[in-house]
């Protein structure tokens, strides 16, 4: 029953997404949106990919990684090399960025994911910084002054990547594999005792997350004209972390909503970067003090829809079926 219902919801979402895609494409082609809005739209898309990919690692699997910007950097540089130095097409670059970031994810994940909590956090932060310093020291990609990249990002590619990220991560989460990851988040020792290969699933979540962060890196590089190592410091990792935490650890729709809202706020505060950071940090502290579960908690937006439906129908046990 449940499984079939999921399938129905899946196709419904696809149709909605297609409509949204066509409308935006029309608005962009007809130049109804000025470049500022288009650019904000692209940034929103990239941030959604980043937030959702980190959500899989932190929110679903419970592994506190704060080095996500490292994978973003790998994707950005690899894809830039593919288009700028090797002259290959943009889609190849996106894929290559993702694949190399995923390989980096395996290399980093296997040793570090044995660590827990704070130690894992600090180790991933360290790895993120090491990757940035690595690019700083490679003359081939311009060292500290960075690399200029053509603006190749287009709405269809961006939209396709966002949709692919969401579908892959939702489908992964709503399967026995996703449940294995959630069980690790809930209680690693019990998951192990129930026959879950915890290392395998932790690394797997980390690698999938890294892959999509790499794809986001490819989009990022081909949107901003220039990439420099300083763009990928751990402050960038914190930015992504903020999206996931404010959205609600464990809620994918929360991550998406946070990515949309915060990117819009950031765009409007672009001329006041300090003020933006002051506000962000205050919001972060206040949310942790008063609503540590974030905007959505672990609930998905579908749970709220079902709840209101149940309320209308007057079903007594409606709230019981809010399976997130």
């Amino acid at each position, binding site marked *: 029953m449940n499984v079939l219902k999921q399938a129905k919801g899946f196709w419904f979402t696809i149709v909605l997404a297609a409509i949204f895609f066509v409308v935006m494409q029309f608005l962009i082609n007809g130049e109804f949106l000025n470049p500022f809005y288009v650019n904000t739209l692209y940034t929103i898309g990239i941030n959604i990919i980043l937030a959702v990919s980190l959500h899989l690692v932190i929110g679903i699997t419970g592994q506190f990684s704060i080095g996500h910007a490292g994978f973003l950097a790998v994707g950005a540089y690899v894809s830039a090399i593919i288009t700028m130095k090797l002259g290959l097409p943009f889609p190849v670059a996106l894929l290559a960025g993702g694949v190399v970031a995923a390989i980096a994810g395996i290399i980093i994940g296997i040793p570090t994911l044995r660590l827990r909590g704070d130690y894992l956090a600090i180790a991933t932060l360290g790895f993120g910084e090491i990757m940035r310093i690595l690019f700083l020291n490679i003359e081939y990609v311009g060292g500290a002054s960075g690399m200029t990249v053509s603006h190749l990002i287009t709405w269809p590619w961006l939209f396709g990547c966002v949709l692919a990220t969401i579908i892959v991560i939702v489908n992964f989460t709503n399967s*026995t594999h996703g449940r*294995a990851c959630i069980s690790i988040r809930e*209680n690693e020792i019990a998951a192990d005792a129930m*026959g*879950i290969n915890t290392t395998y699933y932790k690394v797997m979540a980390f690698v999938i997350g890294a892959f999509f962060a790499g794809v986001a890196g490819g989009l990022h590089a081909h949107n901003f004209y220039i990439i420099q190592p300083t763009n990928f410091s751990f402050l960038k990792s914190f930015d992504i972390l903020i999206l996931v935490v404010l959205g609600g650890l464990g809620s994918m729709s929360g991550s998406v909503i946070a990515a949309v809202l915060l990117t819009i706020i950031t765009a409007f505060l672009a001329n006041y970067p300090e003020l933006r950071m002051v506000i962000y940090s205050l919001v972060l502290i206040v949310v942790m003090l008063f609503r540590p579960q974030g905007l959505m908690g672990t609930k998905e937006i579908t749970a709220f829809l079902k709840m209101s439906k149940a309320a209308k129908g007057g079903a007594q046990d409606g709230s019981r079926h809010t399976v997130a």
Partner: protein
Amino acid sequence: MAAGTPLLKVENAGIRFGGLKAVSGVNLELRQGELAGLIGPNGAGKTTFFNLLTGVYVPTEGSISLVGEKLNGLAPYKITKKGISRTFQNIRLFSDMTVLDNVKVAYHSLARHSILSSIFRLPSHFKGEMEMEEKAIEFLKIFKLDHVLHEKAKNLPYGQQRRLEIARALAAKPKLLLLDEPAAGMNPQETEDLMNLIALIREKFELTILLIEHDMNLVMGVCERIYVLDHGQLIAEGTPEQIRNNPKVIEAYLGEEVS
């Protein structure tokens, strides 16, 4: 396998943490289908012994084998797949997951659909997930938990949480089930129900069970054989009657109360 052949064989097993011998020189044989109890004063090393059996700790001496297969040094999840499953002294449910999902996690190692088939929603994914769900619901009926399938585990009353934990351990299809103080914190009525449940599942699943318990009524009532652990060493084994009259056991317990 015929009844009476040894299922679990523990030879001279032990573990030391630094200089401390937490468990040492334990010899123990469980026959197929047996229901045995492990008792002992607080801090005797009972839970540590369970941790040795399930691979949470690697024994520093001796060997542990299940149906002739050596288990030493295997990761816990591998030992579970070989057929030892357990519950925990302080309940360790996946508290933010539903009752149904808790059991589904235990079925995970039986799932045949790959990550890719799930991501691309291939037919094998739907087939695998449907089967899993049907099996889990059937299974929860035995434990009278089918009316709370979609409730989060953390919202269940205490007695049901204990039952769910046993159900989850059984869903992993163990040959040997280890229960760590299953009746802890239960009232007499709940304990009674639990004893019946244990008898029932043992019958139904042809299980071998080893349980740690402080409640002497429960241990003496259901167990056929009892092992007594004190200061990390096995000091006695036998039928409930033999244990009740064993001077060493009496001393271990009385000695504890004096200190």
